[in-house]
Structures are given as structure tokens and as C-alpha cells.
């Protein structure tokens, strides 16, 4: 990775978010003790740790699922795991590792079946996924119902796989999940650049000699493993939420894959731990829904507040734009009118100025008067001295931009991104500006 000493503003913001969530997670412990009278007993600590580890894994792998636009594939995968759980139980009894292996095999079989449908028929992905999802899930439900009818105490709790039950998690489960999780994360780290390339541009990866099929299969396998590990906690129905929500939330805050994945891991760990702890308050609260509630809050906050992409942000930006353009456009209207009807300080009649720019003129006039660039003159509006200076400056700036576009190449001026709101005089070096100004008409010179 390229070592960089200076952090960009976006990087800093990313790390601030990560730090903030970690802090919030840490604060959750004393807060929950105060508010819910939560006791962090041994059991609760185990559940919280399990939730955090699973959330972290889900966040990392879910980021890739989101970027590959395969969010719903996670849904199909988790539903498809259910018959595997049931069959493994019938064959090997209630041993978690066997149940998970069964779930993994069933899920993988569902995935292969899905690929087979997609490769050999003209069915679209959503239709194929829908079919696999319901077929496997239906088989799972049927088998579970059959298992319930067997008079044997040990099947108790098997239906927790449907909605998830954190309370059922014991220390050996957490050890198992952590051990597998470390392997999964190590594989992701090892194949980081391959996963990135195949996710962004599979054709190019293929043309570079990467075995796309192999890398895709590996990534899918890791997602299956993650989904299967999370089943006991979140349940087959809601596992997809735990998988994709952290990635969706993280995507809003950052523009780099590294940070997105790290942030998703932190979001996931937070949602997993908090959701699991809340549900452990009472054995009647299923864990899956709780985790989803917390994840969804994170998503909601992110799509509302995230700078750049967030809804609130874009609303504010639109508002600011409306205001800014109302002011500058009204100023231009007044200046143009004044020049056409006498001199720069000729007032423009109120009716006229409202007629030219119906919608935004009110805001424009208000702002300009507030900043002292215009004043009321009879039934009209007159530019003040500062208003005239600003209008001249704007006109000259636009003229310089025109000349820049026209002569920039021939004068050998440095390349600027063309944003005419910027003051070109400030953007160009002095020598370049002088060259450009030499092209001005005498009347445009200050």
C-alpha cells in the first residue's frame, strides 16, 4: 500500500467516524447499565463478544456484496442454509459445528444451483434468486416441522435459526466463530487487490490473466461462511440485513474501498454487539430483529447526515445554491439594465426586475440589500458603489474566462478546471494572468 503521511479531509472524516462509533460502543456499556439496569454478566459478555465478531465479519464481506450489487444474493444464501441445518441435525445431532457445516453445504448448493440456472437459461438473476430462495427455505421449514414432531428434547432451540437467538450462544461458539473469522479476514487481506479488481472491473481482471471464476468463487465462499456463522445470531430471514447494512452505511461516509471496509467492520461490530446485548435482556426478544434495528439506525443516520452523499447535505447544498444564484443573477440583471438605460447607477424599476426573474428575485433583492450592494431608489433598485464594483468584477471575470477558453492553449496557460464562479485572476499565476489580460478589450480593463 502506498504510504501517505498527510491525510486528506475525507480520510480524517472517515477516521473520525470510526473513532466515534468505537467510542459510542464503549459508552454503551455504562449507559446500558444505567438505563436498562443491564448487568454485564458472563453470559451477556459472551453474547456481546459473539455479536461484535460476527458483525465485524459481516461488515467486511457485506461491503463486497454491496459493491458487487449482490445484496440479495446474501438473502438467497442465508435462506438456502436452513435445510442444511435441519439435515445436519437429523444426521449428527445438535452440535453447532455440524449444523454450520450443513448450513454451509446447503447454502453453497443453492449458490451453485443458482449459477446453473443463470448460465443455462434466460432467467434473470432476480427471478432465479427468488426461486432458489423460496425452494430451499420451504424445504428447510418442512424439515424443521418434521424435526419438531420427533419426541426428543434435543431439538429444542433449532427454530432459533429462523430469527436468531443470541442467548443460545455459548463461549465455545464464540471461540469457533472467532477462529473461523480470523481465517476469513486473513484471506480477505491476502486477496485484497484481487477482490478489489474483480469487483470493480472483472473483464479487465480476466484480461490480466486473473482466474475470475476462481476469485469470484472464493469471495462467494467467504460470504457463505460469514452468512452461515451469523445464522445462529441473526437467523436465516434477517441475516442479509446484518450482512449488507454496515456496508451501505459505510459507503455513504467514504470514497475509498479500504476505509469503506474498515468502517463497515466497525459499524457491523457495533450493531452486532448492541443488538445482541439488548436481546439478551429478555429471552423473548429475538436477536436478528434487534441487530437489524440498530443497523438500520446506522444506515438511516448515514444516508441522512453523510457529507456529500447524505440527504440533509444535498438539501442544504441545494438551498445554498438557490440563494447564491438568486443573488448573483439579480445583480447581473440590475447591472445589465442600468448599462442599457444610462449609466451604472441607473435604477431599474421594481416591476421590471421582478418580471425578468420571477421565482428567485425576492431572495436575490433581499440578499443584495442586506449586503449593501443595492438600495431602493423610488419604485426601483439602484446599485450602490460596492454593488457596481462587484458587478464590474463579475463581468470582467466572465470575460476573462471567455478569453481563457478562446486563447488558453495558444498562450500556453496552465490548465484550470473551468468553474466560472471562481475568480480566474486568483487561480492563475501572475504572469499567466498578465498574458490573458492583454487580450481584454480596452473597455473591459479596470
Amino acid at each position, binding site marked *: 500500500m502506498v504510504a501517505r503521511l498527510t491525510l486528506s479531509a475525507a480520510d480524517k472524516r472517515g477516521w473520525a467516524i470510526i473513532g466515534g462509533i468505537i467510542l459510542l460502543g464503549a459508552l454503551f456499556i455504562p449507559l446500558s447499565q444505567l438505563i436498562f439496569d443491564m448487568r454485564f454478566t458472563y453470559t451477556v459478555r459472551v453474547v456481546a463478544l459473539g455479536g461484535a465478531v460476527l458483525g465485524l465479519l459481516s461488515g467486511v464481506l457485506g461491503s463486497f456484496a454491496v459493491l458487487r450489487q449482490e445484496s440479495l444474493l446474501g438473502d438467497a444464501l442465508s435462506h438456502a442454509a436452513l435445510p442444511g441445518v435441519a439435515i445436519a441435525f437429523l444426521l449428527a445431532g445438535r452440535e453447532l459445528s455440524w449444523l454450520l457445516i450443513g448450513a454451509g453445504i446447503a447454502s453453497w448448493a443453492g449458490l451453485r444451483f443458482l449459477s446453473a440456472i443463470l448460465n443455462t437459461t434466460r432467467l434473470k438473476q432476480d427471478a432465479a434468486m427468488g426461486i432458489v430462495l423460496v425452494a430451499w427455505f420451504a424445504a428447510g421449514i418442512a424439515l424443521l416441522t418434521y424435526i419438531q414432531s420427533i419426541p426428543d428434547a434435543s431439538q429444542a432451540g433449532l427454530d432459533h435459526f429462523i430469527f436468531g437467538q443470541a442467548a443460545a450462544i455459548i463461549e465455545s461458539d464464540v471461540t469457533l466463530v472467532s477462529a473461523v473469522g480470523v481465517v476469513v479476514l486473513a484471506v480477505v487481506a491476502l486477496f485484497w*487487490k484481487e477482490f478489489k479488481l474483480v469487483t470493480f472491473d472483472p473483464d479487465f481482471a480476466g*484480461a490480466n490473466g486473473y482466474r475470475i471464476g476462481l476469485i469470484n468463487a472464493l469471495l462467494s465462499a467467504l460470504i457463505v461462511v460469514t452468512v452461515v456463522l451469523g445464522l445462529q445470531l441473526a437467523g436465516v430471514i434477517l441475516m442479509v440485513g446484518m450482512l449488507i447494512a454496515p456496508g451501505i452505511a459505510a459507503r455513504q461516509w467514504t470514497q*475509498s*474501498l479500504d476505509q469503506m471496509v474498515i468502517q463497515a467492520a466497525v459499524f457491523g461490530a457495533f450493531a452486532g454487539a448492541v443488538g445482541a446485548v439488548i436481546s439478551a435482556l429478555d429471552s423473548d426478544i429475538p436477536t436478528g430483529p434487534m441487530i437489524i434495528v440498530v443497523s438500520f439506525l446506522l444506515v438511516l443516520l448515514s444516508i441522512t447526515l453523510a457529507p456529500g452523499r447524505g440527504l440533509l447535505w444535498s438539501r442544504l447544498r441545494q438551498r445554498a445554491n438557490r440563494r447564491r444564484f438568486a443573488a448573483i443573477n439579480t445583480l447581473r440583471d440590475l447591472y445589465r439594465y442600468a448599462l442599457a438605460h444610462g449609466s451604472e447607477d441607473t435604477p431599474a424599476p421594481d416591476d421590471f426586475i421582478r418580471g425578468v426573474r420571477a421565482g428567485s428575485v425576492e431572495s436575490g433583492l433581499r440578499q443584495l440589500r442586506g449586503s449593501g450592494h443595492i438600495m431602493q431608489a423610488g419604485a426601483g433598485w439602484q446599485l450602490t458603489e460596492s454593488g457596481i464594483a462587484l458587478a464590474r468584477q463579475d463581468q470582467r471575470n466572465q470575460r476573462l474566462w471567455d478569453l481563457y477558453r478562446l486563447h488558453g492553449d495558444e498562450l500556453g496557460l496552465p490548465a484550470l478546471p473551468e468553474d466560472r464562479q471562481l475568480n480566474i485572476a486568483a487561480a492563475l499565476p501572475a504572469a499567466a494572468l498578465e498574458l490573458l489580460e492583454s487580450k481584454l478589450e480596452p473597455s473591459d480593463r479596470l
Partner: protein
Amino acid sequence: MPDHPDQSGQAAPTKIALSVDDLTVAYQEKPAIWDIDLDVPEGVLMGIVGPNGAGKSTLIKAVLNLIPRAAGTVMFYGAPYEQARSLVGYVPQRGSVDWDFPTTVLDVVTMGLYGKLGWFRRPGKRERELALFALEQVGLLDFLDRQISQLSGGQQQRTFLARALVQDAQIYFMDEPFAAVDAVTENAIVDILQALNKRGKTVLVVHHDLQTVAHYFDWLTLLNVEVIASGPTAVVFTDENLRRTYGGRVATLNGGLPAGAGG
């Protein structure tokens, strides 16, 4: 530029950069490309031209092993693709990726070096410098930290081009690099292609605009499921061949309609 059609037979480059034999691809029952035989000499700048659905992109993808072939063999400098892929550079269609992917221009260009790095190794300082050099060549140095979703279409195309440049390949495949870019960008891209060509690289370009074919390319393949004609542009780019490629409805370079066209 082939100004003298009568010289077309002269000094044909001897080495064959790409040799395609009996290549056939069928997505459904109908062949997308059928029995393609093609020899591309080293050092040419070749246009691949044909109507929509002629299989131009399919040809490139099949040559690069990206889609299954129903039949045929492809050799790069006499070696199959598996042994020759470090010789091959590729610019996919711009629309084939999600430009909202969270990454920067510099990062995308660095991806062109992943193939050389091989498994597991990560790009470092040297890779960064190579990528910066390529960005300079396409005039995007100021954009290196830009989020790719903020690029214009022309800048996206140049990013892809820079990524292909860092591959430092011998033979380049470019899938519609001129699609939906403005005249300035198109000229800039042509300059880069011709500079590559001058350095002895073989460049194959899927192209659409018949008006510029003779101007841009010294070698031409006309394709419509089968290869209609392939060779020096001066020999291949004739009214007769265009009619055989597009049917009777194409206006030729002279501005007139070919004889026999319905009007």
C-alpha cells in the same frame, strides 16, 4: 497514413502479433462471430469496424479469453494467451464498470499493474510512480486523487487509457475508446494511440465512425459476424467492401451513396 493505395503491398511488417484461427463464438444458437481468421502484423494501428451486432466486442473478448469459444485458436506472437498475457493490454468499454465504485483515479490506474505484481503482492512506490507517469501522458495528473464518480466521460476514458498504458503491453485491445467523448478528448486519445503505435506497439481499436477510419488507422478489419476484409486500410476501405459489411445502405466517405443503394 496510407496516402498511396498502390503501395499497400510494400514493406508489410513481417512478424505476426496476433493470429486468430477459425474463431467462433455463439451466445445462444446463433453465432456472434463465425469462423474468424485474422492475422495482424506487429506495429499496426488497426481499426475493427462493422455494424451494430457485428461481433466487434465479442471478437476482442473471445481473443482475450473472457468468454467461452465454440471453436478456434488465438496466438499472440506465436504463444497462446496463457503464456502471452503480459504482452496484452486491454481497455474495456467505459460503460462496463460502476463508476460509483469507491476509489480514486490513481488507484484505478494502478490496477493496470496488478497483473505484473501477481498474486498477493501489493503495489508500492514504484507502481505509484509508473501510474503517475501514465496519468501525465493522458493529461490527468491533476486528477489523481479525484473520486472516479466525479469524472466526465472523457476523463473516465482517459483513466482507462492510462491504466492500459501502465500495463506496458505489446499489443493493445481497445473497445470503443471514442464512444461518447467530445472532439478534444477524441483527438487526445488518437494522439496517444498513435504515440503507442510509433513505439512499435500493435493497437486494435473497435471503432464506429467511418468518416475517420482512413485518417486514424493504417490497418483495417471489416467485420460482420465474419471477417469481410482485413489488411491495409488503403486496400480494404473501399465502397465495395463497405457494402459487403453494412449492406447497401451505407453512405461512403465520398458522401455519396454506393451504387445500388435504395436512396
